[in-house]
Structure formats: structure tokens, C-alpha cells
């Protein structure tokens, strides 16, 4: 086993366990904390694939900004522990077989096409931020600017919605 494979396994298991914990936890704050662990583990995986800038931004934007908002809202609403209800009979009886079935289908699909799937980027080599930004501002300039515009519209929309009526 190479070092990068061990790191990959550790991070992947951490991400999966945190994701399961996100669903299983009863308290919203604990769920949010698990989600932060997922984000950070994903950032580690990005770094392993050589995407240094994406990894850092993943932590700064998702791990930092967005999750802080989640936690903030949960804290402000003072949301307490959730109560379990055995409401949906369909979920109880059909849920587990269906979940197993979809996992099996995905696994089968991946196993069948394992050879034809393109290999992941070779780990160990870093794509420099300069290359990334050059691409963003030359080849992908229209999608990039459109996304920025979309975000701007969303920000304006949030301000309009939050504005108190005079």
C-alpha cells in the first residue's frame, strides 16, 4: 500500500462515517458538525488529487462560510433534539431493501465499467493556482462570469427579501 492510498482510505472512511453520522445524529448541531467533517475530509481528497486551490477553497467556503451560516441559524433558532416518529410505513418496510438495491446497482455499474472509466488524476502532482486562474479567465471565461452574475443576482434577491417594508 502506498502512502497516498492509506491517506485516501483514511479520508474516505472519515467522510463516509461523518456522512452517516450526519443522518443518524438527533441533534441539528451534531449533524452540522458531522457535515463539517465531511467537507474537510473532501478537501483532503481534493488535495490528494493535486487540486491545491480547490482544496483550500473547499475548506474556506464550504467548511468555513457556509457551515458557519448553518450553525449560526441552528444556534439562533435554538433548535433542540429531534424526536423520532415511526410515521412512514413505506420507509420502514421498503426503505432498507430499496437502499440496498440502489447501492447494488451503482456498485454493479461501476464494476462492469471499471476498465472503461477514465483514471483519476495522478496524485502527487499539483495543478498550480496560476494554471487554474489562467484557464478560468481564458477558456472558461463565459461560464465563470455567468456564474458570478448568477451569484450577484442571488445576493440582490436576498437583500430584497430581507429588506423591511417602510
Amino acid at each position, binding site marked *: 500500500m502506498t502512502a497516498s492510498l492509506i491517506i485516501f482510505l483514511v479520508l474516505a472512511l472519515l467522510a463516509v462515517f461523518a456522512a452517516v453520522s450526519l443522518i443518524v445524529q438527533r441533534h441539528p448541531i451534531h449533524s452540522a*458538525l458531522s457535515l463539517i467533517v465531511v467537507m474537510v475530509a473532501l478537501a483532503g481528497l481534493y488535495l490528494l488529487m493535486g487540486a491545491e486551490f480547490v482544496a483550500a477553497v473547499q475548506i474556506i467556503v464550504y467548511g468555513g462560510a457556509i457551515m458557519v451560516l448553518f450553525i449560526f441559524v441552528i444556534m439562533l433558532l435554538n433548535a433542540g433534539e429531534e424526536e423520532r416518529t415511526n410515521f412512514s410505513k413505506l420507509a420502514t418496510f421498503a426503505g432498507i431493501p430499496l437502499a440496498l438495491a440502489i447501492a447494488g446497482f451503482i456498485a454493479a455499474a461501476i464494476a462492469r465499467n471499471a476498465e472503461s472509466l477514465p483514471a483519476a488524476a495522478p496524485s502527487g502532482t499539483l495543478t498550480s493556482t496560476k494554471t487554474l486562474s489562467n484557464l478560468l479567465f481564458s477558456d472558461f471565461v463565459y461560464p465563470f462570469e455567468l456564474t458570478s452574475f448568477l451569484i450577484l443576482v442571488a445576493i440582490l434577491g436576498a437583500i430584497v427579501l430581507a429588506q423591511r417594508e417602510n
Partner: protein
Amino acid sequence: MTDFLTKYAFVIVPIIKIAILVFLILTVDAYLTWLERKVIAHIQARWGPHRVGPHGLLQPLADGVKFIFKEDPLPTHVDKVAYFLAPFLTLMLALTSLAVIPFGPQKFTVFGYETHVGIADVNISLLVLFSITALSVYGIALAGWASNSKYSLLGGLRSSAQMISYELALTLSVVGVLLIAGDFSLRNIVGQQSSAHGLLTWNVFPQIIGFLCFYIAAIAETNRVPFDLPEAESELVAGFHTEYASMKFAMFFIAEYTNMITVSCLATILFLGGWLSPFPASWTFTHYLPTVLLIPFGLWVFFDGIRYETLFGRIMLPGVGSVLAIIGAALVFFPLLNDAIQGPFWFLAKVFTFLFVYIWMRGTLPRFRYDQLMSFGWKFLLPVSIANVVLTSIVILWRMH
């Protein structure tokens, strides 16, 4: 044994460096509290700590012992996981952020493994530092929420709101430096500021707006006066750490001081040329500055210590003084050593200046009101730092053509 050391040097050397750095930082943190109390006391015409050891020099040790042996009560109905996680997270992130800071220019070889002053030399060190800062909000937010106390909750909310708001200005004020350097590596940012002209090529001159924005935002980010609203004791008792006692409180305290050190290091590296000397390279006589400072200081401590009131002080102070003076004198006779400490000397001198300004401000300035803090951050600091980015880009473009 040597084979083993050479083979695993890439693991062993960083571990040794981490141990040394953590020990140093914790000691510096402890003596920073001493310095802060002493300086503020003198600003307010008091003596400050002076009972434990000569000039109160052993006060940090006494405080440490007190923190360890204090009772650590657990408030009722706290969220145990978050309550215990918060101080550890805060301290861990504060110490981790120091890992990417380079302290000096030298490279040296241990067990056949080439390494440098500082733990990790990452080529995106600035981004790593910002991502760690982004996560450090959680420690405070969680501490406030988990404590099951109104004061803590309000303090935690305020603190996280403040940190999120000023993080934007902090990050944007650095972009100017990044545009000039064209690199995320702190080592290369320092290298780009070096020239034969000394301090004239430091980033602080072209980036004076960025520097001021950065320093203001950094003070707010570390929750210090005049932005220490999370700890406004007249309104919130002690803010997010009201319900913490003993070692867990100490962890928040150490984390706060460590963050101050990190931010000062960052300001030094980004704007004040890191370990570069402010004098032109041709002025080789400035290399004796450490000696010139150490010998008189050591002699002063020596002669001041002889007349100290207590016997312990009469032994300890002259001892410390003579050691300092001898180190200063030794530097003259070992030019290689003298050259080696030039980088760390200037780095530490600049960091110390920033830390002193921190303390100085705490002794001088009143606290902001909360709405003032928010409107200052969003309506003044953020636009100014964005304007700085635009201005810097225009100048760089204009120079390219």
C-alpha cells in the same frame, strides 16, 4: 540507528520541530500575559504583577499551576460533546496555523534531510492559513452554544458574527500583496520583497491601505481591544468562555494569544518583509545590532538586579543579565552564528513590535459599540479593501503595458 534516522528523517525531523515550536509558543504565550499585565499596569501607573519571582517573572508559572489544580465544574445541561470539543478545537487550530509560517531564510540539514526554520513549507501556505482561520470560528461558536448559558450564547453569537464579518476584509486586504507577489507561498512573498535597498521594497509602502485594513481586521479577528466585544464584561460577563474554568479556560486563553502571534507573524511576512533587514545590504555593520542591543540590556538587568529587594531576585536577575550580555558578546566572535541569527532576529523584532502595539492599544483605546463594529466592518473596511484590490490591479496592469 543512523540508518533508521536517515530513512525516517522526513517524519522525525518535523516531529522534533513541532515539539520545539509548541514548547516555544506556549512559553511565549505565558510571558506575553506577563508582558501585557506589566505594560498595562505601567500605562495605568500601577506596578502589575511583582510578587511571584523578581518583577513578577514567575507569575506565568504560578498561573499555569493554578490552572492545572483548579476545580473544573461542569454546568448542568451542557451539550457534553460540543462543550469538550470547543476548547480543544480552538487551541488545536490556533497552534496548527503556526505550522505554515516560515521564521527564517536558512535551510539546514538534519539526518541528511534538508529542512528550514518553520514546520511546513507549503506552496499555498497563505490559503492554508486562511482555511484554518475560517474553521476557528467553530470553537467559539460551539463554546457559546454548548455552555447552556445566556451570556455564553450571546457572546458566542457576537463573536462568530464579528469573525465572519472581518474575515472578508482580512482576506481581501491581502489580495493586493498576492497580486504583487503572484504567489501564495509566504516564503516567496518575503523573497519578492527583498532587495539591496532594505525597507524601501517592503510591501507596506505600495500596500499601505491594505496594511492598515489588514491590521484592523486582524485585531477584530483575534477579538482584541478595541474589538473585544465577545468579552465585554459589563454586558456579557466573559462572553463565550463564561462557563469554562481551569484548563479548558486556559486553552481558550492560550489560543487567543497564539492567534495574536500568528497574526503578527502574518503581518510581518506580508507587509514588513518578514526576516529581511530594514537596512540596505551594504550596511554590514548593522549585523552587530543584536550585540549592541543585548550587551547593554544584559548589563542593565545585571546592575538593576544586584539591588533587587529579595535574595532570589539578587541571584536570578544578575544571572539572566550576565547570560544575555555573554550571548551578545559571543555573537561578535562567531560571525557565522551572527549571520545565522540575523533573519530570526529581525523577524522576532517585528513580531514583537506588533504584539506590543496590541498591548498598547488595550491600554489606550475604549471598546467599540456593537452596531459601530458591524457598520465599520461592512461599510468602511470591506469597501476600502475592495477599492485597494481594484487600485492595485489597475497599477499592475498599467505597469505591464
